[in-house]
């Protein structure tokens, strides 16, 4: 005898998983994702600060010898000055966008490269997949920071902010490539992709009309993750003195503060500005990525009992 199923064909809502996936307004959505909102607000205020900053303060003051050296915060120098005579407020206004620039360029390069390779590997499969995955796996075990140090050390001095971004990006694409590949692998097997294939849709069309839209929240989360990783790496390199020597990025400020013994000299303000800026930056990126993660992976959402 055969199996007789009751109503299994009906696309019914399972009682254990009530249907919540309907069109909800973006406002309602953000209300339910306070992490994302808080992260966006924090990041937005950093952007506003670096965009509007130059209107209020002369960026020339970020140059050495432009102010009285080693001054604690005062009404003239709200963030104090370093022992080279840089006004640290001006350094913040100049340095923050430079650091953001490195992160965004490197993150963008990493995510584009990672998406292209991950999509190709996941969708095409076969030898291509094996090759791409193999290369990623091998490169992932390479100690990134050490390689970056070696590279940065050999082109030391001449490095610009943009080159810095590319150096960092060169080692940042493997992780996105790998995770995107595994996402594509599961998406490829979904019924709607199979339907599209059966109905004669061409591969590029399937990729852009069926797979990409479903990959977007995931890509957004990976992008933010890559930006954070790139900023982390670039600040790390800079803090070791391997960054652009003449640009007052946040990392270089930390390097100078360490090199010129800011701690032992009690110049807390020299460290406070870059640390606070970096901490706000990382917290905002972290919250945005956690928020996006909840969109891409609803199971992480906190359930209220």
């Amino acid at each position, binding site marked *: 005898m055969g199996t007789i199923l009751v109503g299994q064909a009906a696309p019914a809502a399972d009682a254990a998983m009530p249907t919540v996936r309907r069109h909800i307004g973006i406002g309602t959505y953000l209300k339910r994702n306070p992490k994302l909102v808080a992260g966006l607000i924090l990041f937005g205020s950093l952007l506003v600060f670096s965009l509007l900053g130059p209107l209020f303060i002369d960026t020339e003051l970020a140059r050495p010898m432009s102010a009285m050296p080693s001054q604690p915060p005062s009404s003239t120098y709200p963030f104090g000055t370093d022992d080279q005579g840089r006004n640290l407020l001006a350094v913040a206004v100049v340095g923050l966008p430079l650091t953001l620039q490195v992160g965004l360029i490197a993150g963008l390069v990493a995510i584009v490269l990672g998406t292209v390779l991950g999509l190709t590997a996941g969708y095409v499969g076969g030898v291509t997949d094996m090759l791409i995955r193999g290369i990623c796996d091998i490169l992932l*075990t*390479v*100690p990134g*920071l*050490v*390689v970056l*140090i*070696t590279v940065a*050390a*050999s082109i030391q001095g001449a490095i610009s902010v943009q080159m810095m971004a590319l150096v960092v990006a060169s080692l940042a694409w493997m992780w996105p490539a790998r995770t995107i590949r595994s996402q594509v692998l599961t998406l490829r097997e979904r019924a709607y992709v199979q339907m599209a294939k059966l109905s004669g849709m061409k591969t590029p069309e399937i990729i852009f009309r069926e797979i990409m839209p479903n990959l977007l929240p995931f890509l957004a989360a990976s992008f933010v993750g890559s930006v*954070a990783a790139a900023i*982390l790496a670039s*600040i*790390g390199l800079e*803090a*070791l*003195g*391997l960054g652009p020597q003449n640009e007052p990025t946040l990392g270089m400020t*930390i390097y100078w*503060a*360490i090199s010129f013994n800011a*701690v*032992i000299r*009690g110049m*807390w303000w020299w*460290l406070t500005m870059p*640390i606070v800026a*970096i*901490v706000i930056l*990382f*917290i905002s*990126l*972290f919250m945005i990525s*956690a928020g996006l993660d909840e969109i891409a*992976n609803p*199971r*992480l959402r906190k359930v209220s009992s």
Partner: protein
Amino acid sequence: MTWKLLGKRFGMFLIVIWGAATLNFFLPRLAPGDPIRERLFALSTQGGLTQTGVEEMVASYNARFGLDLPLWQQYLNYLVDMLRFDFGYSLAMFPAQASDLIFDALPWTVGLLLVTTIISFVLGTLLGALIAWPRSPKWLEYLAAPMLTLAAIPYYLLALVLLYVLAFSWKWFPLSGGYTTGTQPNVSLEFWWDVLKHSILPALSIILAAVGSWAIGIRGMMISTNGEDYMTFAEARGLRGNTMFFRYGLRNAMLPQITSLALSLGHIVSGALIVEVVFTYPGVGSLLYNAIKGADYFVVYGVVFMVVLALGFATMLVDLAYPFLDPRIRS
């Protein structure tokens, strides 16, 4: 576990090491000009007391990279040297051998990072799993936010803050070094106490920052493990909360974390680079930093080689241990 599998995995390990060594051999030759020769030349033109040393170094350099031997022979010699951990002379601290400098610094770094990595892994994994556990007390969730925030901060920044507040302002801990300058390293209880006092701040900054990132990793895994059928069935069988948490939940959620732990342990050798620099801790991190600043290439390449060796070794160990942790891999 068959011997065949073991041999295969060990072969892979050797290939990775060989690849790293080969890269180390060719990288300096690919660079435009010859940074090492230039550096040696600069040293020799300085003349003076180091003159004889430089001659010797140039001779050693020629023997290693010089043009008197065919390339394949140079390469073979080089591989043999690498197997003996002979990375050549330090350019900055002649006549010290690069390998001597590395092996002097290694115990400091491994001691600090082995302890901190294990502590932060255990603490972070437990806390993260507890945060994800539905029956945990409410207050744990309030702990989650500050902990995850700490994870978002690069740990050397934490190190700077701790250094300023605890060592400079409050003078609870020494400001720098691995032990009090002037004392000779020995095995007395006093010296150990001194070392401990010096390592607390670097250790604390590493642990505080790392606990959070371990917690984030396990939290996600624990949440998906909680949704597994075997968790529901365990609860349906009336198992105790402890049994379910440790032996059903955590035991399974931890599996993917083991690989990350191996990678972290492998990275131990390169040291907590910037933290060591901040505290002028006499480990591999500081050595590498000074070598980069002083263009001491043989030391840099030596450290890189050691890192690859340690990483390769750690991942091999995990691959070999994994079947014992996850029976599904065994068959």
